[in-house]
């Protein structure tokens, strides 16, 4: 009986020290996440007046949301554009990073150098640098205009023209061309994803491939039958990471509009309403897509 008490005491002590360890997180979460989250949710239903004395929230119901969808001229367009760009780019990033991880996992001369170059975007694609690159698009457009007037045709545009004239699936081709033209964006956004895939590929035991090739499996077949199932759980991780990462990019136009409304127009209520709309849509996309992906995930053990 006494012994049992001791065990219970030990467990309780461990529980207390566990709580002590995560205490900073709990405090921070309550103070800087939960409270602002509810506050911004409440503010989205209000007209917020800021004065030196304090904040004055006047409840106005759904008017901010109505304004975002029906009155504001840009918001719908920006939202649709950003979301579709996010879906297409995320898919491209997944395919690209998986492909690169497969290549980087093989043995060849200078592999360390190539790996170092491919992980460089982890540093270079973050924060303000991306925004600066985005601004340079102005100059790039001037440049492309110059190119057009001087009649220099590139190979890619010639191929694009040939494919477009075939007339089958024009819109699908256009999407593909967009990705091909934006391959730099895709490459620069897939640093972490490549690392995650690579770490998964390295945990697959090589004797599986040996056994498969003795049984007469080609490399193509073992890619689908061994590699894919073994790292399928990482697809889920990468997919969520990619979407979340995309939401926080500094060249995201919806976010630009939100922060402009907040800082330049001091319209806190409207800005909160827009950010909640964006947030709910993104969460819905993450939820639905990860539910679908998790159906296909295979756990080895």
């Amino acid at each position, binding site marked *: 009986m006494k012994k049992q008490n001791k065990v219970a005491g030990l467990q309780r002590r*461990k*529980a207390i*020290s*566990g709580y*002590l*360890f*995560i205490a*900073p*997180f*709990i*405090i*921070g*979460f309550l103070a*800087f*996440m939960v*409270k*602002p*989250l509810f506050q*911004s949710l409440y503010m989205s239903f209000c007209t917020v007046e*800021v004065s030196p004395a304090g*904040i004055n929230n006047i409840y106005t119901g759904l008017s901010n949301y109505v304004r975002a969808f029906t009155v504001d001229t840009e918001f719908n367009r920006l939202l649709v554009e950003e979301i579709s760009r996010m879906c297409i780019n995320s898919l491209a990033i997944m395919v690209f990073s998986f492909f690169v991880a497969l*290549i980087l996992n093989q043995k*060849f001369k200078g592999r360390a150098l*190539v790996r*170092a*170059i*491919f992980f460089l975007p982890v*540093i*270079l694609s*973050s*924060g*303000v*640098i991306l*925004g*600066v690159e985005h*601004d*340079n698009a*102005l*100059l790039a457009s001037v440049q492309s205009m110059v190119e057009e007037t001087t009649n220099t045709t590139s190979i890619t545009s010639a191929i694009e023209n040939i494919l477009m004239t075939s007339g089958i699936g024009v819109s699908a081709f256009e999407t593909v061309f967009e990705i091909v033209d934006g391959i730099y964006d895709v*490459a*620069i956004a897939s640093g972490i994803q490549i*690392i995650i895939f690579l*770490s998964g590929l*390295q945990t697959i035991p090589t004797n599986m491939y040996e056994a498969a090739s003795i049984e007469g499996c080609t490399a193509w077949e073992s890619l689908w039958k061994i590699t894919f199932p073994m790292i399928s759980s990482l697809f889920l*991780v990468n997919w*969520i990471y990619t979407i*979340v990462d995309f*939401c*926080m990019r*500094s060249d995201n136009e919806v*976010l630009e509009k*939100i922060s402009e409304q*907040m800082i330049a127009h001091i319209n806190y209520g409207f*800005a909160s309403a827009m*950010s909640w709309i*964006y*947030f709910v849509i*993104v*969460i819905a996309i*993450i939820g639905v897509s990860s539910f679908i992906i998790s159906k296909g995930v295979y756990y080895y053990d």
Partner: protein
Amino acid sequence: MTKQKKILEGQPGFWERNRKSGGYLLKKRILDIAYKIIRVLLLFGMCFLILQPILMKISISFMAEEDLYNAMVISIPEHFTTDNYKLAAQFMDYGKTLFNTIVVSLSIALLQITVCTLAGYGFARFDFPLKKFWFACVIMVIIIPPQTISTSLHLHFRYFDVFGLSQLIRGDTINLRGSVLPYYLMSAGCMGLKNGLYIFMIRQFFRNIPKELEEAAYVDGCGTLKTFISIMLPDAKPILTSCFLFSFVWQWTDSFYSKMFLGNIKLLSTQLAVIADRMDAWMVNTMKVSGGASVGYTNCIVSTGTLMVIIPLLILYLFAQKGFVESLSSSGIKM
């Protein structure tokens, strides 16, 4: 002669083996070589794709203004100059800004990783009620974009108050906008930039340490805290360095939190954004060029500035590349 060679090698030549295998060997060899060539081309192309903007920036940063409009000059400057660097440094107040950035990034990264390590360890090695709920909260922190709560955080720190204490004493709320304190407070509460991700990664690492190690320490009379410091932490060095480097680098280039909370301190990330405006003003006021700087020259100075922001990071990356990558791949991220 051929006979000797055969004996020397102890096996038949390539062509003979090829004949015996019915052409299979030759086909395989050709496919192998073709694959290698394609791979080299592909990798070279993609590496070039990633490096090209940096190389371009480097070459542009050494060009004088007339080179920018000279169609003959593409990548090697005709009038080699370092004036661009001097100008960019002047606009960004480089020396002071660099110092500020280093201090802020280092202190924030250290603070964040310390707190995240504590939380990650707590989640990995202890059982306590509501653990699943709190961990779900960590996942939520990863997923919620900070922009969602930025509006109310803005006001939260404008009229900052701890349980109405300051209202009681000073009769007023404290305005913390424009001071560094809010961001340090948030970092101490694991709510900084991508902190949920660090907690997740560190927890993943600590979970893989065998339980026997911990039990042995307890049996030998180690307390909880001592076990953590002298047994678990030394083991976790690689993942902690990795997280620290990420935190440092992302803090360095971060614009969102810097703009919101650290506006009054000159940081590289915030200074870079205003370089173009400064350039314009400088051209009008000092050089007496009406109409401001030309698009091309502004762009040149901005790329020089970008280069100056990332050069310290590139140097860091050169030396600590293993720390970035190897430890992350050894930790085995899984869901």
